[in-house]
Structures are given as structure tokens and as C-alpha cells.
């Protein structure tokens, strides 16, 4: 039997506000336990939540970015369950009237095609605290610093058909939330971007959805792909052996690369959602939406299309350069210096610069070579001041803080020799010094030409224009 996989994702993006969603306590990561939890976060008797207006703006920004419906009225609801790191015994979330309704994003697939993935809704909620089970013998500790941190839960339609599509979608949302400045996208520290995957299988051609398992605890895109693939295999094997998939929550264990049952539907809570009487419904006007829309930066998808259509970049380069706010702003700053050299700039960013950044484990925002410096370098290649090979040396010098390309070229005397007289003179010396090789070439050994080019470049310290060297050599060594 042929099986089709159906995947939907629930993404929790931590909103990048300074204070919590319902209190004035700081959201900064890494403080000593319980030092960033005020009376409201601790769920003290008598305290009341007050909505942080900035989270509403951020949620609307996301809604606008995915072309979603944004209702006039949005309601906070209580999700009731007991857990020690949930101080009030309920989580303030949204249920019937979420702030962001139906929207969609486009993902690019490996074969170059693209696919629309539906976003069912996105709602605001507060995060819970953290239970620490390994710090005190026979006791658990609770850290409520994270309690009340604002989250946007983004729920997709079950539109993905493979782990690769799921990862492409997750990456897309990941770059989008960073692009519009609502989430720092950190998946490790403080886990400000978390994914849960709903995975099911069905016989290919069936319309009905199979029973799904929800995978939790996935903190990287690599693990997302592995967890889903493991789960698909597990479900197929189970069903083909005559078993049945049960609806349950499963935990992904990255060390063992497997998913494990956490709780089944039978044990699931009845959350008893009801509108939170402590909070008024949020009213959003068309003016609010228009104002937020006008202030939104150009979105990744629009950039991608512009890079391809106006700048004539390849699909691959356009994808990468529009994938994040930092990389696209670097690219666009460089482009502003040398508008006619888009392709060359793109190649340098995605080639040598990315390579060096990966090696030094730095982000592009912290690159030692500025966008302006890189553009200066690319320009000197384009105007034949230096060769591509010399350019690598100049790049390295820039990386080490020796200044702009022009200064380095000047100081190191790297200016390319384009004077054909000077090149001719070097060639003549090389020919005179290597009569055997001249004979070999004249006897038909083409490869020897490379030897001569090498010798000329060496004598010129790499500064001779390689094109000119080739041309003049061929003329002088006419067979």
C-alpha cells in the first residue's frame, strides 16, 4: 500500500516585548530563578492581568504579513488545568475569537516549485513557568521567570505532505517573524521559537484524515525533520502490522532519535475554556490595521520576487538572500553602493562571506566585513583593478581589519597589471627561460599553456590580468 503523510504544525513564537503579556515584569532571558516574576506572574490572591498593548500590535503585524483576516473583536479565554508551573491554575489564551484568522504563506520546494500552506489561526497566550526536576533531591523546583511571557501560537492547516515541506514551512514562519521584528527566533536559549507537529498517515488517494499523533519538544529544524520521519515510519509500520494509531502526544528524544508516548487522549484534560472575565475584549479597527500595515517592512516573499525579477538573481540566491532580515539588509546595503553588481554581490555574500562567517560562528549582522566594504571589493573586481584570485586575499585582509579594499590594494600593491606592454615583457622572460616547455607546446601539448600562465602570474605576483595573459601568450606561442 502507498501511504500519504499529512502534517500540520503548531508554532509558538515568543513575542519580543520587554515586559510580559499581562504584567510589567521583564522578559529578559537568563535571570536568576524567580527574580523576574511579580505578584501577577506568581498568581497571588487578588492580582489582575493587564494586557500589554504591544503584543496586540505584534500579532496584527503577523496577521497582515500572512494576509490573514483580523477580527474586529478578539477575546482572551482561560484554559484551566493544574500544574505546579502554572501559577493561576489556568493559562490565559484565546479560544473562540483569536486575534489572527485564516491566512497563508508560500514555501519553496527543492524541485524549485512553490506551494501555498494555509495558516488556520494565530492566537495570543501567556507562557507557563518552568519545572526543574534535577536540582533538588526528592523535590522539584519551579522558576516562574518565564510565566507570563507573551507567545503567538501559529496553527497551520494540515497542508504539508512530507517532513521536508514541514521544515520549509517552519523555516518560512521562522524567518517571517524575525523579519517583521516580533520574535528573536532563538530556538535554543529561552526557546523563543518552538514547534509541535501533528502527524498522521492515510492511504494515498484518501480524503479522510488519519488519526494523528502530536510531537512535542522539538527544538531545531533538523530534529523536526527527523522526528517527523521517525513518526511516519512508526505509524506505517504499526498500521501495516495490523495496529491502529492512537491519538496521543509524543515526545521527541533527540538522543535516541525516536518519539515516545507522553499522554493519550483518554488522559487529556478538559480545559473548560471560558472568556476571561478579568480582561475586556480587544477591539481592533480598520485604522489600526492600516497603520500597522503601512509601517511593515518589505516582506521576504516580496523581496524574493523583486530579487528575481528586477535584480535577475537566480531563484536559489534570491531565496537565500530573502530568507532573513539580517542577510537581506546586508545584501541591500551592499547593493546600494554598487547597484549594477547584484549578481556579483550575491555570489560574494553567499560564497566567501558566508563561508567565513560559518567558520567563525558569527551571524551576518556581526560580520567584520561591512556591506559597504564588500561592495567596494566587488567593484574593484568588476573594473579589473584586481583579479578574482587577488580579491580573496583582499577579502581576508578586510576580515582581519586592515581597512577598505582600496586601501589594502594600495598598501599591498595588489593592483592588477593591465598594461599589455608590461605583461608582454613578463611573458617574453618566461618564454626565454623555458625553451623545453615551448617545444612541448609547439609539439601539440596544450596543457603546457597552463604552466606558462602560472609562471607569468607568479612573476607578476598574481597581479597580471589573467585574460590578457592568456591572450598574449597564445599570440606569442603561435603554432
Amino acid at each position, binding site marked *: 500500500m502507498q501511504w500519504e503523510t499529512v502534517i500540520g504544525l503548531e508554532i509558538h513564537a515568543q513575542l519580543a516585548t520587554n515586559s510580559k503579556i499581562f504584567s510589567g515584569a521583564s522578559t529578559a532571558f537568563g535571570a536568576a530563578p524567580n527574580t523576574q516574576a511579580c*505578584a501577577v506572574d*506568581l*498568581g*497571588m*490572591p*487578588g*492580582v*489582575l*492581568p*493587564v*494586557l500589554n498593548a504591544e503584543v496586540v500590535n505584534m500579532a496584527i503585524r503577523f496577521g497582515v504579513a500572512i494576509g490573514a483576516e483580523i477580527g474586529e473583536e478578539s477575546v482572551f479565554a*482561560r484554559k*484551566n488545568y*493544574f500544574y*505546579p508551573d502554572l*501559577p*493561576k*491554575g*489556568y493559562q490565559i489564551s484565546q479560544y473562540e475569537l483569536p486575534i489572527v484568522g485564516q491566512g497563508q504563506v508560500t514555501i519553496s520546494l527543492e524541485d524549485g516549485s512553490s506551494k501555498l500552506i494555509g495558516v488556520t489561526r494565530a492566537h495570543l497566550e501567556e507562557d507557563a513557568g518552568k519545572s526543574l526536576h534535577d536540582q533538588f533531591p526528592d523535590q522539584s523546583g*519551579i522558576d516562574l521567570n518565564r510565566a507570563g511571557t507573551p507567545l503567538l501560537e501559529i496553527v497551520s492547516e494540515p497542508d504539508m505532505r512530507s517532513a521536508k515541506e514541514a521544515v520549509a514551512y517552519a523555516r518560512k514562519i521562522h524567518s517571517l517573524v524575525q523579519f517583521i521584528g516580533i520574535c528573536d527566533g532563538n530556538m535554543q536559549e529561552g526557546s523563543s521559537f518552538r514547534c509541535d507537529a501533528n502527524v498522521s498517515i492515510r492511504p494515498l488517494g484518501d480524503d479522510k484524515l488519519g488519526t494523528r499523533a502530536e510531537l512535542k519538544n522539538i527544538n531545531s529544524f533538523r530534529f523536526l525533520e527527523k522526528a517527523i520521519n521517525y513518526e511516519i515510519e512508526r505509524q506505517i509500520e504499526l498500521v501495516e502490522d495490523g495496529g491502529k494509531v492512537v491519538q496521543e502526544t509524543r515526545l521527541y528524544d533527540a538522543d535516541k532519535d525516536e518519539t515516545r508516548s507522553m499522554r493519550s487522549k483518554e488522559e487529556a484534560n*478538559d480545559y*473548560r*475554556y*471560558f472568556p476571561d*472575565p*478579568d*480582561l*475586556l475584549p480587544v477591539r481592533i479597527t480598520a485604522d489600526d490595521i492600516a497603520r500597522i500595515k503601512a509601517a511593515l517592512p518589505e516582506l521576504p516573499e516580496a523581496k524574493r520576487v523583486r530579487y528575481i525579477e528586477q535584480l535577475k538573481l537566480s531563484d536559489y540566491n534570491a531565496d537565500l538572500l530573502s530568507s532573513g532580515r539580517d542577510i537581506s539588509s546586508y545584501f541591500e546595503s551592499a547593493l546600494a553602493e554598487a547597484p549594477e553588481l547584484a549578481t556579483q554581490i550575491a555570489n560574494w555574500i553567499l560564497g566567501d562571506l558566508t563561508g567565513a562567517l560559518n567558520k567563525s560562528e558569527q551571524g551576518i549582522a556581526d560580520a567584520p566585513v561591512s556591506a559597504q566594504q564588500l561592495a567596494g571589493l566587488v567593484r574593484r573586481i568588476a573594473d579589473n583593478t584586481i583579479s578574482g584570485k587577488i580579491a580573496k586575499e583582499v577579502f581576508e585582509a578586510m576580515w582581519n581589519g586592515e581597512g577598505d579594499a582600496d586601501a589594502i590594494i594600495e598598501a599591498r600593491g595588489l593592483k592588477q597589471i593591465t598594461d599589455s606592454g608590461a605583461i608582454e615583457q613578463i611573458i617574453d622572460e618566461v618564454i626565454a627561460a623555458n625553451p623545453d616547455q615551448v617545444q612541448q607546446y609547439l609539439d601539440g601539448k596544450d596543457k603546457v599553456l597552463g604552466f606558462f600562465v602560472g609562471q607569468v602570474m607568479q612573476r607578476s605576483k598574481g597581479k597580471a590580468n589573467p585574460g590578457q595573459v592568456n591572450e598574449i601568450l597564445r599570440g606569442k606561442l603561435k603554432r
Partner: protein
Amino acid sequence: MIRTVKDIQSGLDKGEFSSVEITQEYLARIEALNPSINAFISVTGELALQQAEQADRLIADGEASALTGVPLAHKDIFCTDGVLTSCGSRMLENFTAPYDATVIENFKGENAVMLGKANMDEFAMGSSNENSAYGPVRNPWNSDCVPGGSSGGSAAAIASGMTPAATGTDTGGSIRQPAAFCGITGLKPTYGRVSRYGMIAYASSLDQGGPMAHTAEDCAILLNTMAGFDPRDSTSIERDVPDYTDDLEKDLSGLRIGLPAEYFAEGLNDGIARCIDEAIAEYRKLGAEIVEVRLPNSNIAIPAYYVVAMAECSSNLSRFDGVRYGHRCDDPKDLEDLYKRSRGEGFGEEVKRRIMIGTYALSAGYYDAFYLKAQKLRRLISADFAAAFDKVDIIAGPTTPEPAFNIGDKSDDPVSMYLQDIYTISVNLAGLPGLSHPAGFVDGKPVGLQLIGNYFDEARLLNAAHRFQQATDWHQRQAEVK
């Protein structure tokens, strides 16, 4: 002879006594009477005297504000920084609040003096004060009787002269019903008028704090300090606070008072009916025009109230889990055991009953039939009032169907207990202001008359009650406590 807040203000002003002297006097009376009445859970004598000394200094320096040096009691539902805040529950018998409720902060801002924290039904759930983990409160007019609830400690403390005035809270009648039972005046303001921050929540969409005192005038003085927008309470309303004493003397001629037929139907005690009739006749003499109105959905108020209130309380009380503060059982075996025993031991019977009913009402499959339906009934009840207020300025009727009952009489019959709130509950469901003032006696027990106003019409209610009190002396009777 009663002593009012107004009397104390003028005595302090004229230098007839100091705040320390008057505070000592009340503390002495508390020491003498509280053992039998049990109106206070905590008496904060030392703190009160410190505050009184500070107040006397301010008065001497000419820096006093309206309530500087005036002794008051606060219902033990308001969080008070550094002072036990038990909410009438064993659950919070060890809970010293780390902050002040906004209402408390407002009184501190005026340098009022806090005598102590008043007894109450546990978590404000009850109409008799028998549901307190700190023992029942006795009615100063008849020690066999309940003082009403849930603000029974506040009402009994005022009626017995242990405090001139107090704060209370009202979710379904918890200020007005004990005010009626104890022969004092109590006002439940419009929902959103007084901040709920720091007031331990019972049913968030119904709870409202308000003043309790001998007179409407004192209620106006206290409300001036209690009312106002609070950015820490999203349901508080940003709207100017008038000086509630400004309109007290206004003539009542032309005031249209509506009597809802539904409030004078079956179930109303004959003695109370007579008292209300006479009080209405008095209002007529004062110039009011009496009109009949209808509130046809009054009969659904009790079921609607109990669904909404219990649903909200089942969630509001989840935070009392033995994890961070409050009662924790000994040697919990595991997490579930910790929850079950801490809550099982910490909460009393009535609280458990309401949590269970509320949990049921919110459960999957029952939500629409109960909670959603109750919210719809709530809108019908509000619409009834809106229609009535097209015709009249104030609605009047009895506060309670019968006078104070004996301790123990209804404690095994929750439904008959819930019926005590039949005239007061609709006002909370609609979010309107309501006031109860003394209107006579039945068998030596006080009777309360309820005035219901339109939204933010507290000043009009206080004006009517004040004029009534100028013409009558029911509110000036002092219970004789042995």
C-alpha cells in the same frame, strides 16, 4: 446613639479628640465585644495606633485629608501589606499579603486608620457568615441570628459600634444583605467603579467593593476615596469621580421611584412588606413620584447567577493549590496528593460545593447549556432594567425576603440560603449600583430597603437615602450588645 464618620471628622477637625484617642476607644470596644460577636478575624491594634499617631501629626500640621485619622475596618478579602489576609478561609490562614489592594492603598493615601480585618464567609461565598473558617459572626441585634453575608463581619462591627464604617464586597448581595440584617447602610457601586485589584476574586464579572456605614452620608464620604479608575484593573472604568457628598441635600421632588411587582410577590415576609410600604410612603412625602415597573425576568436571576458565579469561582480558586502560598498538606506523596489534600483540607464545604458545580457547568458538553445560557439570561435581565430606567430614576424594594434568621437554620439547605439573595442578585448580573438602608424592624430585627440606580448613578442613590435618613431615625438606633 451612633457615631458616624462625619461625627469623627468634625471631632478631629475641632480638636474634641485626637485620632489616637478615638482609635483607642474603638480598640477597647473591640476588645470587649469581639469575643462574643466575632466580627474581626484580625485586630491590628498596634498598627492602628501608629497610623493614628501619624494622622494626629498631619492634623496638627494642617495636612489632613478627608479621612485622616478616621478608624475603619476592612473586609478580610482585601489584601493588606504585611497583615494576615485570610479571606475567611483555612486555605489562607498563613497568608500575609505582600501588597495592598488598590482600595486599601486609597485609604492609606488619606491616612485613615485600620482597626482590623473583618470576618466574612469563606471566599465571600455565603449569605450568613456561617461559612467562615474563623467561626460564625453573631448579629448584634440578636445573638441567635446571623448577621448576613458575606460581609457579615463588617456589618456586625458597625452595628455594634466596634467601627464607625467598613469596606465590604458584593457579588450577589454581600454588602446589601448584611447591611439590611444589621440595620446599617451599604452601597454596592456600579461594576467597574471601584478597583478590584487586590480584592481576592470570587466571581470576577460580579464582584464589586463598596462602603458600609451607619448613614448614606458616610457611604458617600467613603466612596469618594474608594472609587476611581485603576490601570491595574482592566475592568475598572475610566470616568470622572464626582464628589458624592455634593448632591446629598438635593430635594427629592420629582424623583421617579419604580416599584417592581416581582419584588413584592410571594415569599416576602409580611413584616418586611409593611416596613417597605411605610418607607415608600415616606419617600412620597419627600416629593418622590411612585410608579409601578416590571422586571419580568427576575425569576431567572438566581439560576443565572449561580451558574456564572460558580463557573468563575471554580477557575478563580484554582490558584490555591498548596504550591506557592496558603495551606499545604503534610507530607504529600506526589503531586496529585498535594493538590487533593491541600485543597480538600484548606477549603470549606460551601466553597467545595461551588467549585464542583462551577467545574461541571464549564465542562465540555455542558458549557453551552449552562454558562452560555446564563450569559444570555444576564443580557435579558440587563434589558429589563434598561426598560425600567426609561420610566423611572430609581427602583426600590425590599433588600431581603425575610429578616435575619437563626444561626444553623439554613446551613443544611443551600437552596433556601441561595434564595436570600433573590432581590439583590439581578443588580450584580446587570452591573448596576444598589444601596440598602434601614427601614424599620420586624420582631426587633432590622429591615433593609434596597434602592437600585442606573449605571454610575451612585450619587442619586446616596441623595435619596440621605434625604430619607434626615426624615427618619431607623439608622440611628444602636444595637444593645451584652
